[in-house]
Structures are given as structure tokens and as C-alpha cells.
């Protein structure tokens, strides 16, 4: 897809998630978010980026329905979010794998909760385990895998339930640098096949620019939307070329210029 064509399709895309006047105050009185308005286009990858403690994970969990905001509401395709739903799947920063279950059972877990019959969900799990590149590890336990592999299990579990929206909370935070790069590339590859809307939380500028179509910059606590940057990078290039792309480097510099004022 060339640049122009891509931009054309983007403008036509519908909003899938609408964040409307969200404020969040925790019980102790900490104001995590204040007046957040945001539209997330369907079929794109949006990242939330900001200094630590800016409430980006809180925002993600509110969209996921895991937290209830003190003010405002989130709508998905026009319907108000009141809790987690089958249209969203979550990937956790600390993987949230069951240590007593094999990779296979962990990946099946979302389907198991929905009451899908055993052989059916088994088949599906095998497929997604292979897609995240873990074929052959079905019978391993999480403690036998590296951090990067564990997060692949978390990703496969989220993909297996076939939700439209994939929500990832700093999925690479506990993964070392080389694994992280490889994982980012694999993830982009996989997502281009899966056609999902992805919401991604990160504190790495490079990661945000590299993986997303739209970067939402949040200010320090209480978190507010500071800027929304649409990254127009030719993604048909190879990963290494992208990382040397002028546009890519400009976006990184721009964002850094904003973020450094928070230090």
C-alpha cells in the first residue's frame, strides 16, 4: 500500500472507540485522569504515550471496562461501556498467565470461560500458538519460557477470543531489547493479517512511533490529552529502513520535544 492510498483509506475509517470526558479519581484522592476526550479509528493501531504515572494504563483499563471512571463515559460503536465485553481482549504487562496451566490451556482460557467445547477451543489455540511463533511449546509451563515467549502466550490468548479490539498494556515492558524488536515486528506482521483495532500503552517513544498509526500524548498527572500525532510512515519498507526513515526520526524528535518539558 503506498502512502497516499493509505491516508485515503484512513480518512474514510470510522471511529470505533469514543472516550468522552473521562476523569478518574482513586479512593485515596489521587486524580489520575481529567477531561480526556479521544476518538480511536477502527482498524488502526493507537498508542498512549506519556511519562510514568500519567494514567495511561488507567485509561486503557477504563476502555477495557476493568475500571469504572468517576466522570464521563466510553462508547464502543456508540454503545456505553459498563464492563469488559467480548469485543475487547486485553494483553497484560505482567503477562497474567496461570503458572499451573500449560501454554495450550493458557491460550484456550478465554474460550474456556465462554464455554466453548474442548476440541474446538484446542484447535483454535493450536492455530494461534503457531501464529505467535510458539509451535511445539504447547505442553510447556510458563515458568519454562522466557519473558518474551510468555508475552507471546498472552498475545495468543487475546487473539484466540477473536475480539475486534486488542488492548495491550506495556506488553514489552518486561522483555529485553532484542526480543522486544523482534516481537514488535512479528506483532505488526500478525496484526496486518488479523485486521484488528489495537490500543497500545507504552513509555517508549521509539516503540510508539514504530508500531502506531496514531500516538496519543498524555500529560503528567492528572493525565490529559496533550497532542495526537498521526504518524505517516511508509510501512511497506523493511523494519530497519523504517527505523532510519526521516519521517520516523522526525516524529521521535517531535514527541521528545514535548515529553522533555515534563521532566
Amino acid at each position, binding site marked *: 500500500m503506498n502512502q497516499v492510498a493509505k491516508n485515503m483509506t484512513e480518512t474514510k475509517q470510522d471511529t470505533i472507540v469514543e472516550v468522552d470526558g473521562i476523569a478518574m479519581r482513586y479512593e485515596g484522592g489521587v486524580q489520575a485522569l481529567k477531561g480526556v476526550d479521544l476518538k480511536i479509528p477502527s482498524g488502526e493501531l493507537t498508542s498512549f504515550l506519556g511519562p510514568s504515572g500519567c494514567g495511561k494504563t488507567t485509561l486503557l*483499563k477504563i476502555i477495557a471496562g476493568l475500571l469504572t471512571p468517576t466522570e464521563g463515559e466510553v462508547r464502543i460503536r456508540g454503545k456505553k461501556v459498563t464492563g*469488559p465485553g*467480548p469485543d*475487547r481482549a*486485553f494483553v497484560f504487562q*505482567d503477562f*497474567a498467565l*496461570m503458572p499451573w496451566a500449560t501454554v495450550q490451556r493458557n491460550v484456550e482460557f*478465554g474460550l474456556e*470461560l465462554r464455554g466453548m467445547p474442548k476440541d474446538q477451543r484446542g484447535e483454535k489455540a493450536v492455530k494461534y500458538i503457531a501464529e505467535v511463533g510458539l509451535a511445539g511449546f504447547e505442553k510447556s509451563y510458563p515458568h519454562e519460557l522466557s519473558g518474551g515467549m510468555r508475552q507471546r502466550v498472552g498475545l495468543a490468548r487475546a487473539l484466540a477470543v477473536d475480539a475486534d479490539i486488542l488492548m495491550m498494556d506495556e506488553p514489552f515492558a518486561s522483555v529485553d531489547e532484542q526480543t522486544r524488536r523482534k516481537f514488535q515486528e512479528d506483532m505488526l506482521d500478525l496484526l496486518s493479517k488479523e485486521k484488528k483495532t489495537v490500543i497500545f500503552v507504552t513509555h517508549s517513544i521509539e516503540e510508539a512511533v514504530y508500531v502506531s498509526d496514531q500516538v496519543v500524548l498524555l500529560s503528567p498527572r492528572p493525565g490529559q490529552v496533550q497532542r495526537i500525532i498521526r504518524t505517516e510512515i511508509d510501512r511497506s519498507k523493511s523494519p530497519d529502513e523504517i527505523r532510519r526513515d526521516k519521517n520516523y526520526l522526525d516524529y521521535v524528535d517531535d514527541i521528545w520535544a514535548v515529553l522533555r518539558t515534563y521532566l
Partner: protein
Amino acid sequence: MALRTLGRQTWLWKLMSFALFFGAWEIAGRIPISLSFPTFIETFIAFVRMTFNGEFATAYLQTIQPLIIGVAISSVAGVGFGVLMGLWRTMEWFLVVIFIILYASPVAAIIPLVTYMYGIGLTSKVIAVVIMALPLIVLNCYKGVRHTHPSLIEMVRSFQGSRWQEIRLIILPNASSLIFAGLRLGIGAGFIGVVLAELLITPTGIGDLITYHRSVADYPEMFADITSIIALSAVSLTVLLKMEFLVRPETRKR
């Protein structure tokens, strides 16, 4: 291959550690450190004799029965209470302090009172086992249930799991290691309780055998009695550990 040599080595170390202990015992008995301290060999001979002439069998028939009943009651009630307290705040508020006090206190002191209530029969022994074992089992189960990793709970919720699925598929399996630890502690405490009851109030079973051999100054026999009950408790705990491997397959590969 490397694993097998390692396995053989730990086996060898075990053997050496037993040899060291029994060797020290033999020397201490030969000095002797006390006129009532038999050598290891004398004790061992007494042990073998009592194993084969049925003295142990008769005694343990009386000791094991209350132990099994008491441990069974404590396990069922303990896991039940512990899990309920972990899941249900009102129950926690009502019971947790009581069990913490019972855990920290020498509940053995109640045993004379138990005798007053229930005489010197089986019931008293069962109660002695239960009051020693129950608090440990309850508190461990409670801790296991209460300290479920929050992100696992969030994970179930994000996949729209019901509260029942949350309990059955996450909270209980997650607590299983602490539940097993509680059962092990409980069985250990149950042994203490039953022996104490037999020494203190009901002259039956292995406790009576110890008291009898002490009174007639058959010290090798007395030491053999004591060794046998310690060995039995160690073996029971090892068996339980092996059972845990069966129930929790992920611990096997570690």
C-alpha cells in the same frame, strides 16, 4: 544424564547425613552421655523387635485412628473456613483474629479441659488433633485465597469470566500450593496433638508405650518408640508432598 548423576548424589548425601546422625548417636550412647541414653544399635534392635512382635502394630492401631479422623475433620473444616474467609469479607472479619490467636497460642493447654468434657477416649484424642491442626490449615488456605495475584483476577474479568469461574479456575488453583502447605503443617501439628494427648491423658497407643517403657526403664525400647513416631510423621509428610506432585503437574518439572 546430568540429572541422573545429580539424583544419585543427593541420594548419597542423604545416606551420609543419616550415617552422621546415627553415628553421633552411637558414640553418645557408648560414652555414655547419660545412663539412660542407649546406643543407636541397641535402639535399632529394639525397634526391629517391636516391629515384628506386634507391639508397634497394637500401639499404632490406637494412635492412627484418632489421627486420621482428626486430620480429616481439620482438613475439610480448615479448607472450608479458610476459603470462605478468603472470599467473604464478613466471614474474614468475624473469624480471622480468632484463628490468628489460636495459631499463635499454646492451645495444648486446653487438652486437660478436653479430658474433663469427653473423658479419656477416642473423642478427646480427636479433639486434641483438631485443635492443633485446624488453625494452621485455616490460616494457610485463607492466605492462599486472599493473596491471589490481582492481574490474574483482572485477566478473568477481561474475558468476562463469572465470579464462580474466577474462584474455580483461578483463585483455588492459585491457592493450592498454600493449601497443601497448610495440610502438611496441619498433619505435623496433628501428630503433636495426638502424642500429647496420649502422654498426658489417655494411656493408650504409642504415647502409652513411651510412658510404659520409661517407667520400667527400658530405654532402648523407649527411644525406639520415639524414633518410630518421628519417622512415621516424616514419612506421612513426604507422602503428602508426592501427592501434591500428582495434583499439581507444574511442580513436577521444576
